[in-house]
């Protein structure tokens, strides 16, 4: 029996059934994005607090748009806001938000574990929109949806993750998720960013510092952004990174001919990825953005709407659309 999720804190604690359920529920919302009237009344009267303690554009816009299309109102807190600059504690900030009675909270924070901290102290559902170098569960779910759509299934692919794995929450969530679906995962990047302790995250992980080896036979390639803001080590020269790890059209030919290329964005063209690849037919980058909306709508609907798991899907009922 599928249990209703209370929070979405990470992928690690989810099972295959729960992940599949979220992806299935995202499907109708995906089609809904093409509808001329993109507004449902499903969460009308509900309020979602969108608390971004770390600067972000795309994830924040995606969540607020997802909430709006479900009919919910949002209240936003941003990293630049004054209470954070004045040194208010996380606890006081979230208690203040809670006093305005939101029905759920989406949180992005630079400290790993911050969403769990919030979930332990508030009564409302908490959605992790990325915490430190821990997890970014909605990214992994939208990546999974993109893989399932573009490649016909989610199970058993050869997946290569390229870049700064050590400092990437996207990598961790993807390793947890794809690992549960039998992926053979290869991690590749500058060796100091691909430590052996990563082996523990999923079964059959492979690490290599050589991109040619990592791309050989890959079905899915996830290119990570070089997270300059999170790197405490002496920085690697940009030219060195490009030389060793940029995904170029030429290197992409080492992978399977139909390999799918994903990137969580924001992309730095000419650094981790070449424009020819980013804009090429194998790129799933724009699908990822649209799928992000669908996944986040599904999560907001289930976590905040509180509907039973077997309720009829709101996006399938035309009568639900508000005018």
């Amino acid at each position, binding site marked *: 029996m599928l249990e209703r999720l209370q929070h979405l804190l990470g992928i*690690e604690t989810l099972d295959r059934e729960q992940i599949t359920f979220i992806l299935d529920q995202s499907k109708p919302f995906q089609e809904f994005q093409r509808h001329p009237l993109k507004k449902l009344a499903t969460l009308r009267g509900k309020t979602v607090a969108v608390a971004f303690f770390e600067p972000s554009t795309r994830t924040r816009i995606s969540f607020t748009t997802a909430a709006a299309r479900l009919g919910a109102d949002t209240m936003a807190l941003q990293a630049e806001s004054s209470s954070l600059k004045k040194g208010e*504690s*996380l*606890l006081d900030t979230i208690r203040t938000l809670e006093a305005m009675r939101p029905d759920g909270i989406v949180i992005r*924070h*630079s*400290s*790993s*574990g*911050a969403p*769990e*901290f919030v979930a332990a102290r508030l009564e409302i559902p908490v959605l992790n929109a990325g*915490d*430190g*170098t*821990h*997890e970014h569960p909605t990214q992994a779910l939208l990546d999974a949806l993109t893989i399932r759509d573009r490649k016909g299934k989610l199970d058993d692919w050869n997946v290569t993750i390229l870049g700064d794995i*050590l400092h990437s*929450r996207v990598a*961790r969530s993807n390793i947890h998720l794809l690992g549960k679906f039998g992926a053979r995962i290869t991690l590749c990047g500058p060796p100091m960013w691909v*430590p052996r*302790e*990563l*082996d*523990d*995250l999923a079964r059959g992980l492979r690490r290599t510092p050589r991109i040619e080896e990592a791309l050989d036979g890959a079905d899915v390639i996830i290119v990570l952004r070089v997270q300059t803001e999170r790197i*405490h080590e002496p920085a690697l020269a940009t030219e060195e990174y490009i030389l060793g790890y940029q995904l170029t059209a030429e290197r992409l030919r080492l992978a399977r001919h139909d390999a799918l290329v994903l990137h969580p964005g924001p992309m730095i063209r000419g650094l981790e990825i070449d424009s020819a690849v980013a804009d090429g037919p194998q790129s799933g980058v724009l699908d990822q953005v649209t799928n992000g909306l669908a996944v986040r709508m599904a999560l907001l609907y289930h976590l905040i709407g509180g509907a039973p798991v077997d309720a009829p899907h709101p996006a399938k009922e035309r009568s639900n659309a508000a005018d």
Partner: protein
Amino acid sequence: MLLIKNGRVLDPATKTDAFFDVLFEGGRILKTGANLSAADAEVFDATGLIVAPGFIDLHCHLREPGQEMSETIETGTSAAARGGFTAVCCMPNTEPVNDSASVTRGIIERAAASTVRVWPIGAVSVGSRGEALAEIAAMKKAGIVAVSDDGRPVATARLLRQVMDYSNALDLPVIDHCEDPSLFAGGVMREGPRSIRLGLKGIPSQSESISVGRDVEVANLTGARLHIAHLSTFGSLEYVRFAKRMGLRVTCEVTPHHFTLIDEDVRYDTRYKMNPPLASRKDRDALLEGLADGSVDAIATDHAPHHPASKDVEFDHAPFGVTGFETALSLGLSELVHSGRLSLMRLVELFTTGPARVLGMERKIAAGEVADLTIFSVDQPWTFRAAESLSKSRNTPFDGRAFRGAAVATIVAGRIVFRR
């Protein structure tokens, strides 16, 4: 006069393990022997209990002066007495830092009213900034028992050499908090599979052992006394063993949380955040071995109280440290003795003659000796509740833990200062 009757006396200094009575008068032990009686003495019946020399804690933070939100000498020593400690050495990282005789005197004056002996440790360098030497001779006159820049390592090998030479002449040990700042680099827990999984910045164990290696070399250079604080890794312990084999005067302490918990226990709960961080299972097992084979000289709490609000934050932002006075003995009993790893005598040694030797002192139960005793039960069941702690702070991972054995009476200068 106070007469302790019917107890099992364990005294590592004289290798005594026997049933006899102990009689005190005027803060000293008057006599020991079977079936003692004294007409006007208060009698404490220690039937079924262990009577040991008074416990000494080499490493704690009483937070006074300057951080009274977290602890005061009064609350800290009350918690220490409850844990069976008769004397505690407080680290100098207060506000201001204990780097001058006037701060030392202030601590000693404030401690005069407390029930447990307070032995301050002076700073190695002015403000513990790692530059100029603090006024160590003046502090020694005022009452310090050792020097340390605890909270951070002695900044350079050169400064360590200077302070070891200088303190040697004053007969004071140098206590070092060993870490390599460039490897530590903003880490919040031990580097390993668990830190990777949690996405918390890791500190490699070599951050500590590299620094211990440096210190042992400087001890070899100077011949002075060196004590390694809160040793937590296999590598560090091997350096200490090497130093001991070389005949150097190098000692070390291990904390109860490091011999009890490991990095796999860490979760997003700031009560598991301390420095050094909880070590790997392999390192912890090495500590257990060192505690058993004599490589480790003392158990020290590193009692580090922090005001609840300062700990109720994101893991990254919380200060390092856990409280430890009230759980140290019980953790020692459950993790080391009841588990069969250590004899009861060895455990008592780690709390008494071991730390005393680090300070160049003696501890024993004999006529004429100071009447500091710790009386404890090895099997009395109890549950530690942080809310009931006598410390001002609650930052302990052992809240709610069930134990067998605890201090039953703490006696300082012939007076019962705590009784369960």
